[in-house]
């Protein structure tokens, strides 16, 4: 997995994991989410448009990031999920908690 990080506002950042979010990559994403929130970017958008695969450890990293963001008074939102990621969210019923947004702009709330 590769991970890009983009600051898009004073308290907003977008993370873009590319490839597979499996056992080995989940801790990398979790650390990046914690660092992002710790740096004052309390609204974190995770753009999953190029995430090919998500397993329960990757989902756990997203939930951990959501907890950290909300504890800081912010939120974590996901955008551009593909078919496999959507399947995992639905089978775990976590699509109620991590509601997929169509676009990053939708998730940021810019439109």
């Amino acid at each position: 997995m590769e991970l890009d990080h983009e600051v898009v506002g004073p308290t907003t950042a977008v993370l873009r994991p590319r490839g597979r979010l499996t056992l080995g990559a989940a801790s990398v994403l979790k650390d990046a989410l914690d660092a992002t929130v710790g740096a004052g970017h309390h609204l974190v958008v995770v753009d999953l448009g190029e995430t090919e695969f998500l397993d329960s450890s990757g989902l756990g990293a997203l939930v951990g990031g959501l907890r950290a963001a909300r504890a800081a008074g912010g939120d974590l939102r996901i955008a551009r999920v593909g078919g496999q990621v959507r399947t995992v969210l639905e089978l775990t019923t976590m699509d109620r908690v991590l509601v997929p947004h169509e676009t990053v702009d939708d998730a940021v709330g810019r439109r």
Partner: protein
Amino acid sequence: MPSDAADPDLPLEVALREPADVDAVLDALAGLWRRHPDVPDVDRFCFETAVAEVAGNAVAHAGAGPAGSTATVRAGIRHAVGPRSAAAQAVGSPAGGSTGTAGRPRRELWAEVVDHGSAVDLAEHGELPADDAVSGRGLALARRSLTHLGVERVGGANHWLLVRLLD
């Protein structure tokens, strides 16, 4: 022993020693999808998710086994076989009838995972954890992704059978 007579490249087999090997399993499954492009997306997504979860579980608990022991994954596609062994702990329905809705022999995606970790009680992994839990979803997710998930303890190893019925 499963037969994949229609496809000499199957079954695939991957050894599991470290987290990156879960990706090797997914790479191998990608080859399976290339050879069988008619497998619907939803079946592909569900099956590879379940295999990754059980394989990841095997890697995560590999330290509990004898030194040097290696978990393995075998997987393929075959004509559906009958009801599973009653000796194994299992959840989900047996394979059911031998013909699909179009009158063709039904097929199934199958995987066998052998790991040398401690014994697993599937009954403890049926429910999803609280929404804010950061772990504990893996085997519950695998159960929900499959027609059948079973595990049998044989000679100090867990023998997993994963099946998703097609057609």
